[in-house]
């Protein structure tokens, strides 16, 4: 052992061997990281429910617009107020949507937090404040309030 320690020949060979070994370990680690990162990024693109969330928000806005128009029609021949009819239609829309989303393991809730109606001479239409939330166990999304302006 003492002879090995005292022998100082071939140090360049030893040093270059060490450098090559470290470089090899570094390259392999880098390559592994790249593939693992690629796997996770492509997997996340599949798992993140962007289409479900977009669809939920856009259909809620569309349904609110339809609900306000229906409420104005019913209001002409009924003593129910426009906010009451609109809220009732959106609550029913929320009940159906929740059941449909629940059938593929997602929880959604849509509720009305406020409604203001404007007369026909106003430059603004009716404004509905919605609370929308979505949860699939991994991703939670909420839009509170989601303001929908409907020109009647």
């Amino acid at each position, binding site marked *: 052992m003492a002879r090995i320690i005292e022998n100082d020949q071939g140090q360049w060979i030893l040093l270059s061997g060490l450098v090559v070994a470290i470089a090899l370990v570094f390259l392999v680690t880098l390559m592994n990281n790249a593939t*693992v990162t690629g*796997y996770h990024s492509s997997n996340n693109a*599949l798992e993140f429910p962007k289409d479900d969330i977009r*669809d939920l928000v856009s259909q809620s806005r569309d349904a609110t617009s339809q609900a306000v128009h*229906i409420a104005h029609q019913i209001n002409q021949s009924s003593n129910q107020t426009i906010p009451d009819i609109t809220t009732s239609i959106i609550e029913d829309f929320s009940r159906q949507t929740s059941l449909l989303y629940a059938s593929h393991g997602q929880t959604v809730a849509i509720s009305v937090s406020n409604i203001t109606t404007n007369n026909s001479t106003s430059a603004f239409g009716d404004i509905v404040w919605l609370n929308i939330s979505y949860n699939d166990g991994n991703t939670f999304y909420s839009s509170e309030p989601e303001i929908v302006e409907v020109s009647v």
Partner: protein
Amino acid sequence: MNDKAQLYTLEGLMAAVLITLTVLAVAQSSVVIIPQTDNFLEVQMKQKINDALVILDVTPDTTMEYNLTECVASWNTSTEASYGKDQLLALDKQLAIMLPDLMYNVEFAYVENSSVVVKNTVFNGAPTENSITANRLVALSNATVNSYGGTWMIPDDELKVIEVRLTAWHV
């Protein structure tokens, strides 16, 4: 006992360990590459079928022959598709143009008496295990159904929510 070239022996041993570690690392990473490629195909397919549904839904009915709302509203609710017997030829025709290299089925899911009813409207066979499903909601009012001549029974003060489920797979 010959105690010469001990450092060479040590170097050889280290080289062997390094090579083994490298081969193992490369072998492991190639296992990861396989699901990554599979995922990439699935991501592409999901994007494609979601886009097809969005285009069908947001395009005004004056621009294309039948948009999604029109197809759903005009559907006869008492029918159900089976193999070779589609119940929504208009929708099938549009999807065939948009998804030329995919097989697909279309189901309508809706709530009736507080439970979810699912019916086939376009059926091209049983999906394989690598199939992907995209969903799109359509809210129908009684006025919309009447204007497209459908058979949905919707009270005047309600909206009917129908979920269009498009399941696609590579053949």
